[in-house]
């Protein structure tokens, strides 16, 4: 496929955004997106992720003082139509007055690309997104997944310097979402195009991002690889937003973390830590007499491949997962063993 482009490096320098009604959508933010990298902006609604994307796209101007740099060149004052970035929307934004082919050809026509080459490029895109059969369809004859494929083809047809995706899978049902996510991942990696992907879905973020920017209330909460974000969350917010996190209050005492339900060996315990965090998959069910914590099952959910247990450990709740084939009635007494290597503490809390 003749899609070889030099990937673009994007830099935001203290880009904040205050809207006309004085609401602060985004605190001044610095962000470096390396050439060819996929960066996911992740956070709950209203966290500023879409505003950040729109500033990069050129649909919003940052507050005075903010700069947007494409390969070192200041594009802050360039409108979107001059930036040559592909944009994919949650609502697809396909033109209802054109068929699939017309939609994909639109950007090429705007650029004055001749008929013959335009047709070739459109056919290339149709093949790449495997939608050749839909070429002559009207937009209202397509399903959501097909529409998003057309939207991707349309955005990529003009060979943009970067691809910006704003919750592209949110409007689709779960199964289709997973399928298209895998496709988008392969597509972005295959093309080597710099991409910025906005989502509120942490699973999507983990699967697609080379790096994830977790955002909250207009601020960056953490930037890191999916592994860093998952295994070493920088704050309580990140820990809670990505996956499920257990938290136990207690105190450090001679290489152990002591709670009301038992003590966990923790050689690397930071002095004075008053709470410990760990993921459900780091908790094992132990035999009677073994393990470190005692508790009673308060609820159990059978998920097919495993069972998720909510265990009451002397008044504190611990979520554990087990693949043991048995039923857990509420009130069942269990012993829990916690993997000491998986114990975490947070920088922003003692």
């Amino acid at each position: 496929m003749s899609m070889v482009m030099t990937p673009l490096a994007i830099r935001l320098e203290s880009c904040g955004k205050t809207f006309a009604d004085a609401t602060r959508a985004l605190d001044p933010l610095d962000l470096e997106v390396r050439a060819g990298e996929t960066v996911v902006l992740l956070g709950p609604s209203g966290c500023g992720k879409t505003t950040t994307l729109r500033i990069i796209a050129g649909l919003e101007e940052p507050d005075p003082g903010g700069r947007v740099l494409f390969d070192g060149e200041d594009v802050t004052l360039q409108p979107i139509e001059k930036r040559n970035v592909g944009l994919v929307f949650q609502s697809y934004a396909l033109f209802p007055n054109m068929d699939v082919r017309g939609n994909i050809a639109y950007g090429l026509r705007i650029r004055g690309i001749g008929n013959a080459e335009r047709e070739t490029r459109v056919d290339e895109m149709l093949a790449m997104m495997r939608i050749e059969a839909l070429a002559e369809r009207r937009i209202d004859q397509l399903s959501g997944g097909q529409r998003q494929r057309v939207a991707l083809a349309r955005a990529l047809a003009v060979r943009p310097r970067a691809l910006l995706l704003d919750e592209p899978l949110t409007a689709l049902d779960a199964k289709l979402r997973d399928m298209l996510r895998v496709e988008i991942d392969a597509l972005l990696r295959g093309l080597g195009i710099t991409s910025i992907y906005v989502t509120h879905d942490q699973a999507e973020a983990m699967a697609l991002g080379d790096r994830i920017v977790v955002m909250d209330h207009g601020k960056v909460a953490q930037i890191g690889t999916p592994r860093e974000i998952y295994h070493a969350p920088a704050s309580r917010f990140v820990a809670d937003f990505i996956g499920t996190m257990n938290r136990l209050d207690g105190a450090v005492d001679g290489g152990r973390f002591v709670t009301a339900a038992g003590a966990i060996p923790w050689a690397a315990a930071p002095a004075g830590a008053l709470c410990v965090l760990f993921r459900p998959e780091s908790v094992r069910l132990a035999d009677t007499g073994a393990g470190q914590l005692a508790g009673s099952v308060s609820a159990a959910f059978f998920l097919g491949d495993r069972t998720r247990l909510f265990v009451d450990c002397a008044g504190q709740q611990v979520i554990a997962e087990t693949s043991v084939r048995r039923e857990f009635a509420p009130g069942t007494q269990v012993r829990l063993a916690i993997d000491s290597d998986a114990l975490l503490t947070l920088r922003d809390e003692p």
Partner: protein
Amino acid sequence: MTRRGPAFWCLLGFTLCVCAFLIVPVGMSMLAGVTVNYQAGIESGFTLRWVGQVWDGYSDTIFRSIGIALACLACTLVLGVPAAYVLARKQSGLARAIEELLVMPVAIPGLATALALIVTYNTLGNFRTSWTFILVGHVLFTLPFMVRSVIAVMGAIDMKTLEEGAASLGAGFAQRFFGVVLPNCRSGILAGSLMVVTLSMGEFNMTWLLHTPLTKTLPVGLADAYASLRLEVGSAYTLVFFVMIVPLLIGIQVFARPVELGARTARP
């Protein structure tokens, strides 16, 4: 097939009665226009004499009305579609207020609007005696219908995101407006056009005050004929009006229908 109960036949009968109540007078009037002597009834025979008389005496009003309706359409398109675009894009309270204000000429009696125009522009050169004086009144009256129907369509298909999509593909404002905005408002523009043409064609209230003996429109001529000539001539005039307006309405609707369907199902 499900069996139709008595309720169905009752409703059907009622509907047909109402239709007859509304349509029979129209038919009677048209029939009167081709009857030799209405008092004597249909037995007196049919004739096109009255139609001929209308054509001789009033054909200028017919062409003037068509001309004014088309000019009015042109004006409301040029003024109304961009206005609707701006009002639909701006979510401010001011935009809402302007949208409401635009409807004022519909709420205020046509006579009052006409009087205001006469008081203000009476002395402005030949404006008062020109057909454009009537045009101004018609544009005032019909503009809100165009603006409203275009705004409705723009609101229904999230024009803002469509435009952002077009902009991301490199389209400047003019390319977006003519290539994306206008084609996707077609159903609204056509519905608005239908309203504007028919309203202008049949407008009487305002035109009654605005016209001069040399700038009579079709409805004004119709009133004139009813008032001063035989009933048969007035009815023949009605017939001519129908023959003109019905094909026009059907034509515009046939033209608009497939597009309207497209716009309705296009919402994601």
